[in-house]
């Protein structure tokens, strides 16, 4: 079982609306010895960044920061669908955004309920359901025994008979135990029943490679579930889209898997006060450009943005799209981009074999072959069980320098 994990992830200046360079750990989570160390890392990272420190990281696992452009992305103000609001809004961390979305939907519809391990009294191992059990009661925020297959099936049965459950996998990897129910019942039951029963269920949880959590807690299940017919899959990457996707997924009549990432829960962003949802089938244009289309999702979006600063400094103009919808792909946004840039780089955290990138590549070839000037490049994680050792773990996941190099290669 995973323990709650606080990560300090250096994400130097992404969008203007994402606050500050360094994200400090949540004040909610006391880590006895860890907290102090992380703070120290934060402080020294900031110092290093300001000095333009480029020597090998003395801090394990923190990507090298080259000369920082804090406002490169912000310059493109016509950019994005990600934060259209001109109203003041309020600042939240990503896990709080998820919680807000969840709470709003639970207030709105009494059939919405949550099931999972430690979601109730414990508040969720990543605090997404904190306070909800006190507010809505133990039955609406149900602490389940450790029986993933059975409680996922139970959620499916409840959904078939009229409720709208949200199943939390404490770590997405644990949902491997629920594969029987997710594939057979969640995905297929609407079809095999001839459309009689709907399964408006949301399956969500943290996945992805964290900080030395070991192989089993560092899995990317998007590739395992992508073939299951009848499922929709989305991945959130910012507080804005986290809340929007959570709400949209709950309102959807389809079974939706919402992939969150362990290291992104403490991203801070100003989000609108008013009620909003994000479309489950649309990709997000993060940064328009004309040289190359970079398709990415979840944590890799932030690695791409990090690499983008270097690229921009070196004179490249990348168009960055966060695909958001892992299944189905938004071929319209992706296609329009390819028609403009003619070069595609996919950056993902999935394993190379059978990953989202592999599917995306073949979709692009099927639909936009004539618009390509170069072979599609795909940067994925290594086909390796994520090692525990820090440097090895870094090597399994795509890092910003690799992205820079790939773009340079693509644009030759």
């Amino acid at each position: 079982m995973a323990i709650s994990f606080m990560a300090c992830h250096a994400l130097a200046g992404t969008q203007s609306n994402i606050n500050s360079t360094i994200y400090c750990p949540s004040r909610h989570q006391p880590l006895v010895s860890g907290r102090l160390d992380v703070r120290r890392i934060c402080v020294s990272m900031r110092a290093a960044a300001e000095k333009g420190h480029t020597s090998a990281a003395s801090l394990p696992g923190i990507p090298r920061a080259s000369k920082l452009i804090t406002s490169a992305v912000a310059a493109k103000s016509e950019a994005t669908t990600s934060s259209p609001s001109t109203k003041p809004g309020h600042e939240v961390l990503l896990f709080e955004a998820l919680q807000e979305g969840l709470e709003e939907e639970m207030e709105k519809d009494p059939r919405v309920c949550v099931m999972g391990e430690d979601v109730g009294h414990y508040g969720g191992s990543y605090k997404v359901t904190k306070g909800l059990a006190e507010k809505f009661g133990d039955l609406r925020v149900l602490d389940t025994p450790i029986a993933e297959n059975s409680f996922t099936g139970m959620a499916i049965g409840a959904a078939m008979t009229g409720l709208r459950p949200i199943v939390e996998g404490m770590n997405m990897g644990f949902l491997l135990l629920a594969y029987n129910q997710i594939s057979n019942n969640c995905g297929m039951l609407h079809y095999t029943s001839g459309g009689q029963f709907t399964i408006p269920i949301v399956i969500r949880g943290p996945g992805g490679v964290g900080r030395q959590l070991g192989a089993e807690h560092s899995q990317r299940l998007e590739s395992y579930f992508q073939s299951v017919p009848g499922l929709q899959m989305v991945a959130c990457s910012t507080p804005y889209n986290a809340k929007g996707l959570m709400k949209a997924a709950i309102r959807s009549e389809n079974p939706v898997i919402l992939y969150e990432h362990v290291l992104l829960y403490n991203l801070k962003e100003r989000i609108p006060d008013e009620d909003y949802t994000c479309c489950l089938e649309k990709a997000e244009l993060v940064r328009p450009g004309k040289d190359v289309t970079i398709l990415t999702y979840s944590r890799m979006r932030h690695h791409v943005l990090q690499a983008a600063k270097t690229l921009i400094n070196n004179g490249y103009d990348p168009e960055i799209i966060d695909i958001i919808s892992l299944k189905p792909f938004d071929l319209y946004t992706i296609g329009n981009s390819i028609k403009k840039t003619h070069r595609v780089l996919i950056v993902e955290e999935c394993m190379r074999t059978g990953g989202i990138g592999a599917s995306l590549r073949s979709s692009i070839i099927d639909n936009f072959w004539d618009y390509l000037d170069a072979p599609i490049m795909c940067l994925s994680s290594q086909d390796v069980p994520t090692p525990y050792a820090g440097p090895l773990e870094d090597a399994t996941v795509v890092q910003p320098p690799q992205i820079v190099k790939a773009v340079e290669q693509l644009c030759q």
Partner: protein
Amino acid sequence: MAYVMRSSPSVQSGSLAPHSSASSVSSSASSSSYILRLGALNSQRSGRLSITRRAIGTANRRTRKPHGVSASTSELVAEKPSIKNALAITREEGLILYEDMVLGRSFEDMCAQMYYRGKMFGFVHLYNGQEAVSTGFVKCLKPEDYVCSTYRDHVHALSKGVPARAVMSELFGKATGICRGQGGSMHMFSKEHGLLGGFAFIGEGIPVATGAAFKTKYEREVLKNDKADAVTVAFFGDGTCNNGQFFECLNMAALWKLPIIFVVENNLWAIGMSHYRATSVPEIWKKGPAFGMPGIHVDGMDVLKVREVALEAVARARRGDGPTLVECETYRFRGHSLADPDELRKPAEKAHYAARDPIIALKKYLLESGLVDETDLRSIDKKIDEIVEDAVEFADASPLPPRSQLLENVFADPKGFGIGPDGKYRCEDPAFTAGTAQV
């Protein structure tokens, strides 16, 4: 709430060598007695154990006296001297039970015929011999109650009220089938009749049933609907009782006192695997008390006994007292499926259970008790024959699903197919569901 558990000799001795367990089952079988080994099945109010008093044993009414049991035999099995004065059912009920079982048997026999004539395909699992379990339980339910089954689901569907035409069409793979031809033999679903499936993998229906029971509790306690009292009955076999989902759901159901009844149709065989070769503790009913619910063992070849247990278990669930585990000792007269040569089961065993055919037994009881006469039963037989024939004709005449149906039910909200390169949702393209559009 404390449970009193009556031990059987094999439990007392602590050793459960296969032969001793087998003998305890077969001795009850061979004596055709009606011992019920009970975990407490009672109401909180009365605190008494409820015991089946009436039975329709076949020839031999000798009761087997268990030793080591705290109560005397006469308490356990009260044999009323004049059984005709204490009838278990009324005439109407008797006719309903008879008709339902005959429908199940005739339908399944017709399925076998149709299969060998090439009208239905794939894996077809027939229910012959087990009718008492389906009829006994499902005829105690209200229309709002739920039934969850396995691949051996035709008769559960029929008992629950799904028209024979719709089931037969589904088996033929026609568009008029209950699942539009998309499910097949192993995936019968009916929203209208509360049939939650139809599952091919054993055990995967039990959590779904648990979810339906959870919904009842949720409706009562969160949505504050006092009238919500739908009960769920989950049917599954002896093989499933070694599967994790079974135990996980027993735990959750007892933990939250869900209104569910777990009905084990123990027909002793999981395809070719004998229950005794697969199970360390073959008495499945004993596993109920381990999780905090009553475990009942009932003669599943006797529809009246099953019905009596069912009525009490359903009432218990509806009151909010929680789940019950009922193990029905039953037998399938045919192979596991129509593809199974059924070579492993001994002829003596088959003959033994054939002699306990639930339909013949009920017929005998109804006639002997004077509730009905021959003409009543014969007219029911004829009626059922007509229903089944009509079902076949209807299915034969029905159209196959058109190509355009292929993608229609993949998503409840077809926006799930996504946005195509032209910027429109794929489902907006009228040709899409025929599968000609790109996915």
